[in-house]
């Protein structure tokens, strides 16, 4: 009886562990540096040389950063505090001298690019899933409680905050001098640098979790209502909406060569006609969820399935070109392994990506598009 009760209690507690926010920030390139989130809640700067070399990690074990904002309120006497960052979901935003990261714990952190020291940290109320936008001496970030914050880039203090939607997962985007943000209620809003709203539309029936894309004079949004929307960037009015996909569209739209590519959680890669959208030009089932933003390199669309496979398709007509198998086999030591959630990064005929396994190994995968070979580069 006692043993049974204990076993059941342990089972009950063991099954109910709190889910750890892992984060899925993609590698980002800026100048001669790459920024990669290898540890959950941490970021590593890497030289973009071949092979890539680590420059610094943030935060270090005893890193303390001046906390200028606590729970959304400016601190009159900011103190240097030890940061406990949770998973980083949004892509880092890099400027000439700084890199800004957002964490699920609600933190926005400014880091000096040169040496990886923290300049300031602002802790906003709620969770941050999208990334930051650094523009015009301000840093913009939005929370899952639906608030858009404008922070002073040099000090981190809150300049203004606006309630923009029921919740925000997306990253703010600069469009014609306005900060445009999508909400989990399917809305898209535009604010100027002073926090004045210029327009607000609700094109989608459900949430827009992925970042918006500005291309060819149009704003594109992929929604949980299984459609892509093309919007007028000056008014937010819907220009077209795509045919329905088979599940939530999770990846940001990628626009190239008159087509809009988007991936669904049913594992289908779609190519919509950028002119009209209601036509699906081609589609392919990858067999696994598609959570990683695809890239287009030299006329090839490269998509990564969640099981770590990379697949190449002819961008124009969707003809399958190749598949780089994911593997756990010792006989295939170079095949990518682990779950692939983070977006792919294309740079100089190479695709950089991280999987959950490579993050655990402090390494980064580099896929040579021409040779179709993968290397795992250790960054420790």
């Amino acid at each position, binding site marked *: 009886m006692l043993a049974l009760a204990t076993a059941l209690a342990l089972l009950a507690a063991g099954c109910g562990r709190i889910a750890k926010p892992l984060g899925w920030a993609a590698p980002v390139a800026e100048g001669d540096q790459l920024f990669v989130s290898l540890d959950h809640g941490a970021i590593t700067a890497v030289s973009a040389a071949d092979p890539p070399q680590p420059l610094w990690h943030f935060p270090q074990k005893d890193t303390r950063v001046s906390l200028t904002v606590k729970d959304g309120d400016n601190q009159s006497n900011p103190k240097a505090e030890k940061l406990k960052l949770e998973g980083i979901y949004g892509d880092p935003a890099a400027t000439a001298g700084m890199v800004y990261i957002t964490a699920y714990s609600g933190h926005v952190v400014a880091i000096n690019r040169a040496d990886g020291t923290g300049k300031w940290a602002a802790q906003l109320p709620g969770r941050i899933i999208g990334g930051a936008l650094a523009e015009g001496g301000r840093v913009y970030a939005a929370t899952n409680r639906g608030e858009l914050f404008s922070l002073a880039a040099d000090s981190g203090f809150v300049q203004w905050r606006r309630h923009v939607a029921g919740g925000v997962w997306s990253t703010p985007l600069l469009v014609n001098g306005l900060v445009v943000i999508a909400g989990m209620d399917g809305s898209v809003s535009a604010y100027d640098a002073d926090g004045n709203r210029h327009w607000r539309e609700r094109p989608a029936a459900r949430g827009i979790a992925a970042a918006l894309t500005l291309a060819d004079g149009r704003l594109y949004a992929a929604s949980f209502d299984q459609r892509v929307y093309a919007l007028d960037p000056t008014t937010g009015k819907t220009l077209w909406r795509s045919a329905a996909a088979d599940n939530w569209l*999770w990846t940001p739209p990628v626009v190239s060569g008159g087509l809009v590519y988007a991936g669904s959680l049913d594992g289908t890669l779609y190519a919509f006609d950028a002119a009209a959208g209601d036509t699906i030009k081609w589609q392919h089932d990858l067999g696994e969820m598609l959570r990683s933003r695809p890239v287009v390199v030299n006329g090839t669309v490269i998509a990564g399935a969640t099981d770590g496979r990379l697949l190449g398709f002819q961008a124009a007509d969707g003809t399958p070109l190749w598949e780089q198998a994911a593997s756990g086999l010792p006989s295939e030591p170079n095949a990518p392994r682990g779950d692939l959630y983070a977006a792919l990064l294309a740079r100089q005929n190479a695709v950089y990506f991280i999987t959950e396994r490579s993050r655990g190994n402090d390494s980064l995968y580099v896929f040579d598009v021409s040779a179709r070979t993968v290397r795992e580069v250790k960054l420790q």
Partner: protein
Amino acid sequence: MGFIWDTLIVNPMINVMIVMEQLLFGSFGLAIVAFTILVRVATLPLTLRQLHSSRRMQELTPRIQEIQKKYKDPKRRQEETMKLYREAGVNPLGCLGPMIIQFPIWFALYRVLTLTVGGTPETVAGLSHRLYNVSLIQDAVPLPTTFLWLDLGRQDTTYILVILVGITTWLQTKLSMASATAPQSAQTQQTNKMLLWMMPAMFAWFTLTVPSGLALYWTVTNIIGIVMNYFVYGWHRKDWRDIFRPGQPATDGPRPTRSAPAAAALTDGERATPTSKRPARSGGSDTRTNDEQPGSKRKDRRGGGGPGTPPARSRRVPGGDRDP
């Protein structure tokens, strides 16, 4: 197997839960409370059967102990025990059946909660294959994670839920244990005493490490269990303060073991009157009078419970002869 389990049980429960969240003002906390109540009401007949069966087994304990003392031969002992069960209309596995049927439901409910209150973006992605393509359900994503002072996907940092889980677990354990009216061995008493404090302490400790949505579920399901134990075991006929007195059974003395027809009558919805004037047996003594021989049409009632009820006449263990 996992696919069938998910498709037939877990996913429908997730969708019902989300519909409730939408109907209950978009509050996932209220949905957890309502869903827990709904599931407990749906399994109420099974739970009651289990409780009644368990109680009848407890009532037979002294007579089983006597049989064990009386008969040294294991085969004979088993025969006599089975005979006792037959006469009392009790299936020794009777309390296990309903419990086994309920287990998958509880595991599924538990799984539903861990899948939905996780609250991280990863869990939201995981829901995409589980939600039905119905606007009411799809529109709910991402699920709200705040309820009162709680972030349902996180621990309760105020310790209020820790205290609530501890108290309700203690009460539920106490009510079910104190209902053991039969004399218990020293070892059983020791185990019960340990359980009474260990279970609340363990669950209170777990509350510090699991999402508060799960702790909310534990609190609600404990409260429902307390109410059921309170009525099924007859606590409502007593002063509530007796619950907190050490060693207090639900009734003033051990109840008589029912004859088979009486037990059958109780099975059919507990129709027997608790106010029967039939005297209760004194605890431990286990001889039978002639008028209560098997086959007697006289029905033993679930008396003995009321205050002031005189001790029952003892009766002989059926089967007569003793081992040498």
